[in-house]
């Protein structure tokens, strides 16, 4: 019973997680403050502080990752291939000078091929339906 009075302890993993989440929250807050700011000098200070926070975030992430406390599973390779194919054909269709030439002929009405959507239902649908 971890959470009984007197025996509750934060682990090193909890601590690193909090360092990481705190950095993440601060990066967001600095970004917001920068966007809301009108003084160029203040903007650049806020930008610099956000950068420092980002470096710290990267360190905290590495520390967790090294210890196996933050898993980063690889992308589904068939989805990756489909997305690469989708965007490379779109960009090819648009040509180098923008959309004007090919307006009205954008390929792929649906973003992903139907067979993929069947194999992998969205978040809202349970995976093991009969």
């Amino acid at each position, binding site marked *: 019973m971890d959470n009984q009075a007197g025996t509750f302890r*934060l682990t*090193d993993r909890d*601590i*690193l997680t*909090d*360092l990481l989440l*705190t950095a993440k*929250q*601060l990066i967001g*807050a*600095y970004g*917001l*403050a920068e966007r*809301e*700011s*009108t*003084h160029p*000098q*203040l903007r650049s*200070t*806020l930008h610099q*502080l956000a950068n*420092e*926070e980002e470096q*710290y975030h990267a*360190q*905290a992430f590495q*520390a967790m990752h090294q210890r196996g406390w933050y898993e980063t599973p690889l992308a589904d390779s068939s989805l990756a291939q489909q997305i690469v194919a989708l965007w490379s054909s779109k960009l090819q269709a648009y040509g180098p000078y923008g959309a004007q030439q090919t307006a009205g002929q954008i390929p792929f009405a649906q973003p992903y091929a139907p067979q993929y959507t069947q194999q992998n239902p969205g978040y809202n649908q349970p995976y093991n339906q009969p």
Partner: protein
Amino acid sequence: MARLTQMELLQINELLRAEELAWRKCEYYGQYAQDPQVRQMAQQGAQHHRQHMQTLMSQLQSLS
């Protein structure tokens, strides 16, 4: 002389609150963590949150 807008003032105040709490937590973790590397990360964090508070303060003072 440039003066802060109300929005800037409130945002800086919010950042100071976040940095203060982050700093205090890091000070605590720096004494509490088992692994010396985690301890060191927390101590570094404490130092940089403290510096950020000072930087924010001097911006606040120079623009108000």
